[in-house]
């Protein structure tokens, strides 16, 4: 799993000990970054010494694990998934009709905004791209610095944001140059002069600080930020909502983690019991209460601020599982830098990357 210290604290204090006691076992936990897991499993598998029995992996990084044959087929345990688990969250773990991963923690980005700043300039939280651009322009005009935060740091945060924008514009992100892609990059190029320069450093973990310290007034992030903004910074003037729609629709990438059992694990049975435990109402309630994680279950009563999460999940989309995600990630990031940051022509640049992507697909 890849969790923050505070998240590990809750898991180690409140989730794992009751399970260990009930099953008379000892669970050793390890922090493994999503990008490192495939290499680690491959090394253990080649050495025929699988030391992991269960892992939680970011749902953007699953295809590699399946392609390299590193995970157990869990299809026969599909019937054990509680009926209260949202059905649309199971699909992300299925590859060519085989269930490899079990749902346990969905995630979706919501928009955070500074109520005081919006009220000061008589603005409403933007519901579409035009309103977003208008708000960004007003903040820049009044305060001389951009107050809308984009994720322009590169890698996963930038690609996830672009994916949402493109689908919201009715495009297919993998095409690179369909009308939706072109509309998205044209819009972002227009928006860029009015966004905060902190966007270049804004990752999922650093963005919360920017809005809490009021260097920006609007940003998009995962719901874990609610905890940090409320508890660490004790801010009461930051509100959330599901987000803004593009020209075609409102769309939010469903992220989060799923559970998998490495091929070669020696404790499959116990791992399956632990999966069931993590999917239980009791544990999912603790995730919501203690960590502000959205729940996979429909029978959990959520706090008020979770309405925005629920609404965002209604517009949730899963990214396509493709084996060439790494190449897609690279080209999206490069296109963003060249078009949005450096101001290169939209169509020509996107055509260049569309060709690159075609070559990768053929390979």
């Amino acid at each position, binding site marked *: 799993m890849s969790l923050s210290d505070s998240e590990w604290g809750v898991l180690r204090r409140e989730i794992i000990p009751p399970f260990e006691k009930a099953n008379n076992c000892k669970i050793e936990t390890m922090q493994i970054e999503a990008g490192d897991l495939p290499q680690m499993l491959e090394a253990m598998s080649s050495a025929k010494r699988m030391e992991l029995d269960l892992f939680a992996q970011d749902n953007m990084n699953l295809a590699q694990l399946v392609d390299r044959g590193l995970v157990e087929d869990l299809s026969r345990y599909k019937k054990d998934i509680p009926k209260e688990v949202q059905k649309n969250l199971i699909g992300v773990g299925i590859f060519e009709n085989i269930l490899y991963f079990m749902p346990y923690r969905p995630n979706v980005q919501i928009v955070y905004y500074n109520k005081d700043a919006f009220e000061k300039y008589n603005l409403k939280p933007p519901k579409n791209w035009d309103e977003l651009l208008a708000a960004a322009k007003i903040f820049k005009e009044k305060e001389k610095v951009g107050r809308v935060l984009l994720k*322009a*740091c590169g*890698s996963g945060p930038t690609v996830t944001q672009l994916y949402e924008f493109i689908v919201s514009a009715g495009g297919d992100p993998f095409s690179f140059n369909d009308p939706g892609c072109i509309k998205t990059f044209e819009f972002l190029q227009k928006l860029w002069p009015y966004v905060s320069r*902190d966007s*270049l*450093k804004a990752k999922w973990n650093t963005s919360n600080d920017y809005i809490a310290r009021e*260097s920006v007034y609007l940003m998009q992030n995962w719901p874990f930020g609610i905890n940090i903004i409320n508890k660490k910074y004790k801010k009461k003037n930051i509100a959330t909502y599901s987000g803004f729609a593009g020209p075609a629709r409102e769309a939010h990438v469903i992220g989060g983690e799923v559970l998998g059992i490495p091929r070669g694990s020696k404790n499959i049975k116990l791992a399956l019991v632990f999966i069931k435990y993590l999917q239980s109402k009791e544990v999912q309630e603790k995730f919501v209460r203690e960590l502000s994680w959205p729940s996979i279950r429909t029978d959990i009563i959520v706090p008020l601020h979770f309405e925005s999460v629920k609404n965002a999940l209604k517009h949730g989309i899963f990214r396509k599982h493709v084996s060439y995600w790494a190449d897609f990630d*690279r080209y999206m990031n490069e296109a963003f830098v060249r078009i949005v940051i450096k101001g290169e022509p939209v169509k020509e640049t996107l055509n260049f990357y569309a060709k690159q992507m075609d070559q990768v697909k053929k390979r």
Partner: protein
Amino acid sequence: MQNKWIKLKKDSWKFFFLLPLLLYLAIFTLVPVIRSILMSFEGGNNYAWLFSHFRFRESLVNTILITIFALLFEFLFALAIALFISGGGRRRIIQALILIPLGIPTIVVASNMRYLFDTNGFINTILTRLGVVGIPIDWLGGGALTLFSVVISDMWKVTPLMMLILLAGIERIPKELFEAAAIDGVGFWQRLRYIILPLLKPFITMALIIRGIDTFRIFELPLALAGESFPVLSSFAFFEYRNYNNPHTAAAASTVLFVLILIAIFIYLKLVGLPNEETT
């Protein structure tokens, strides 16, 4: 010939004791370096791709600029501090204080420097409150300002190392030379030019080579300070391998870095000479 053989036989136990270290170096340094170079030639023309890629070119330029400016400023500051604290009784206390940054992990230095250089960080707060600037300066958004921020951060951490080496060199200069210069009425700048710098040359060479190699490999500081908006060669190689699963281009970028370091050492040694040449 026979004498040489006898001497070699007599010294063989020394080689025996050196063997574990040599084996360690061969297995954990030499083999990976060679493997990495070989990998860089596999899977297509990685070098042509690298040099046609705008991110790589940016990384290359940033790395070279950081190295040049960091070495220059670190050397000047280290020399000034070393000259200031050499000889006097204040030396030990100041030396101990100045060495503190060396003990702080680079990533911690980078995090602290972010508090200084962030748009709502310490420097911008002071500058805006004093009315020096109207809007916060974007120190870490890429370009020359970010280069400056990275160089300053690097200087803060590693100038003490260079200072220590130079101080050791200054302490080795015979006192009689300074006494004779004082009798002749030689001023500070002349002493610096005709006595200190020439006799310090081997130490300067050593300091610049050690720091030069280290600065070329700079990684955590620019990454933690400015993220991907200010790439350097090692972070470029890291992202190629980790984010894009491309070990061959990562190896090629690392090889370019390796060659760059070799070239820099070669040029410097050609210009200045080997450290031993001065002392023997």
